[in-house]
């Protein structure tokens, strides 16, 4: 049954007439056209669908849109502010920390969430925090470097 769901989406008040049991992933992709959030496994194992909800990285495939009601949802499309890329996005470009790019939005959202919680993570903390986001191309080394650089840019790291 459809109902009105209200939440903050990429900084804007949003509402939609929608079945609240639909998964947040497909609502973001299909209803809102925010296709930067990717489907990789649909079971929460790969992290390609990671978004921030109230600053916490979550797997949007494991959440229904009803669960997001009243919350602040940020997707990869909402990370840049006024056209200026987020430091994590900048650092991914600088370090060439991607190949096919399919896991990249999820990696960036997870890293952005990690830096909110821990602005100056050690390499080990970055590895631990990124462990469950999967990349098949093997961009891991550069992703770690990018997160370190972003941390410094955000004045988290020394």
């Amino acid at each position, binding site marked *: 049954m459809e109902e009105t769901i209200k939440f903050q989406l990429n900084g804007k008040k949003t509402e939609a007439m929608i079945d609240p049991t639909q998964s947040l992933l497909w609502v973001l992709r299909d209803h809102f056209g925010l296709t930067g959030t990717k489907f990789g496994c649909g079971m929460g194992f790969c992290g390609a669908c990671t978004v921030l909800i109230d600053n916490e990285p979550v797997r949007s495939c494991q959440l229904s849109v009803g669960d997001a009601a009243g919350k602040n949802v940020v997707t990869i*499309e909402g*990370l840049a502010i006024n056209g200026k890329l987020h430091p994590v996005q900048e650092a991914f470009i600088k370090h060439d920390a991607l190949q096919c790019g399919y896991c990249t939005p999820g990696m960036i959202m997870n890293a952005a969430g990690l830096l909110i919680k821990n602005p100056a993570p050690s390499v080990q903390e970055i590895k631990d925090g990124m462990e469950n986001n999967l990349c098949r191309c093997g961009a891991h080394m550069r992703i770690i470097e990018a997160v370190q650089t972003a941390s410094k840019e955000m004045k988290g790291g020394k």
Partner: protein
Amino acid sequence: MKKEQIKDQESIQTSERQGMPRRDFFKLLGGGIIVFFRPWRVLDLFGMPAEQARSLPKDYNAFLHIAEDGTVTCFTGKIEMGQGIITSLPQMMADELNIPVERIKMIMGDTDLCPWDQGTWGSLSTRVFGQSMRAAAAEARGVLLDLGSTQLGVPVSQLEVRDGVITDTKDPKKTVSYAQLTKGTRIEKFLDVKPSMEDYTKFKSIGKSYNHSDATLKVTGEAKYAGDMKLPGMVFARILRPPSHAAKMTSVDYSGAEKIAGTKVVRDGDLVAVINESRDKADEAIVKIKAEYSFNELPVNDKTIYEYMLKADSNVTVVKSTGDLEAGEKLCEKTIESEFHDPYLAHVAVETHTALARLEGDKMTVWASTQSPFGLRDGITRELSLPAEKVRVITPFVGGGFGGKGEFQQGIEAAKLAKLTGKPVMLMWTREEEFFYDTFHPAGVVKIKSGIDKSGLIKLWDYNLYYSGTRGADAIYDIPNTKITHYSQKSGGSPVHQFGTGAWRAPNNNTNTFAREVQIDIMAAAAGIDPMEFRLKNLKDEKMIACLKAVADKFGYVPGKTRSGRGIGIACGIDAGSWVAHIAEVKVDKSTGKVKVVSIACAQDMGLCVNPEGATIQMEGCITMGLGYTLGEEVLFEGGKVLTHGLDTYNIPRFSWLPKIDTLILDRKDKPPQGGGEPAIIAIGAVVANAIFDATGIL
């Protein structure tokens, strides 16, 4: 004569039965070793049937177009899946046309716009397509210079081109641009004598490092993959899948699925699918279909497959033979026999096979994640009985391929469903479908009998390869008596592989390089010689010797006889025209058998390196991905049932696995460019196994 038997399969089977992860069971192997591989089912440029061995067009207009504003569009049937040719092909074209690389726009993988192409695999984009494209661009430059000469009334020898502007060197005010000459139209002039490509001393873009040109699109989420396309009236489809490759549907009841709001069930023979405007609803509906199957399972599983292969009635081919094995054996002081087992592997691109199909009038357009847009076009033409010009395949960014997207079943399925339903149909395989229909890297067995004389020279090499392919099966060392025998599927015989197998990054070479290089270390240990010295002593291949010396230098290798306890391993190999050598250091927890790869260094000779940054990233990717087949990955099965369904049980490399990686590309800019997307993965299994051998004395 001393023989050392290297066989202990019992301990492997025991550990696998107990579900022990691969990285733990290296220690338990005793003498045996496990490898990886598969037959090259995807078309290979050099092994293609004559009717399919089409060639690239001769007309350079098929490769490029110069617009009125001076923008140059480069057309290629190749696709971008992370390997970086969207960045490196423009570098190659820019240097032939003498224009800035930024002025080049890429159109990739669109069958209506791009020249025919066999597919993006085999590390062929740079070494084959790139070279043809450079030659085409060189001719276009020659023609433009001719036209410029006429326009300016100055001989060609007096002209130079910079940034797409032809200038009279004696009167620099006399200029004409490419855009002014072509006015955006097709160039109708051709040269009888084709000009040579630019000399490497004149390169401005080639050899210079460029970051991924698509990075901004990819970090903002703007990059479009097949699943990101949307059309008015589009529906999502899910297809009913059998529980086994040996299953045949006997009955089906889809009344339950039709009760899910907005669902329509469509059927065409064995193809049963649900469509719904909502993907979640389609997911909900598909599981409501009840189907019965009959099974015709063969008695083989992931434990017994190796014995099954050895006992199978195989097609036997001697691929290569030199000298005389019997005479060779007589020269040996020690002979060593080994048997290597390699499991099935999945590709696991993070993007699953995806396609959106639309039938508009009589024209079918399919947006697909594929390494083979023209292969998919031909497949749809064949399966739907449509003329080729009525089928267009467009390939947006591809979210990883690794050989797995050389197959394009999903594109044909989406096209069939679009025709059946009359609606644009989006088909995005689930991860479980991906594990079921993946054309796996094939399991295989390698048996080697080799021997060394008193001085440590290899005199005997009897190499037997079962149910993998021969890419990388050459001995590469200077051995007088060799025989390479290939055991493969007998036509009409009972199938050994119970499901589809195909190309997996550097197909078969991972298997062959593993077996060869581990055998080399076993022999070095038997000879009591440092494994680097043993290799150099038995090699005549100058490129291999140079790579080994370069990697030793990069790593800071200090000689030490194998089983030194240090945990340092060496391995090398040849793939896609490139030479690679690796050194790895591992730490083994002797109480648990756990292996941590501490560092891997790699030296690569790939001829002319077009984009050093891109090539380095590919090497890092190869090394990281290679750790998966070495330490964690294996597809489990029972008959035609694939038991590995998801990313919770199929163990691909993660951040915690990451070693320190050091790469080095040898400077060979005077040589033609070779492959870069695959070579550095081939020796990872061997270099890690050899390092474990060095740490523990166990393989």
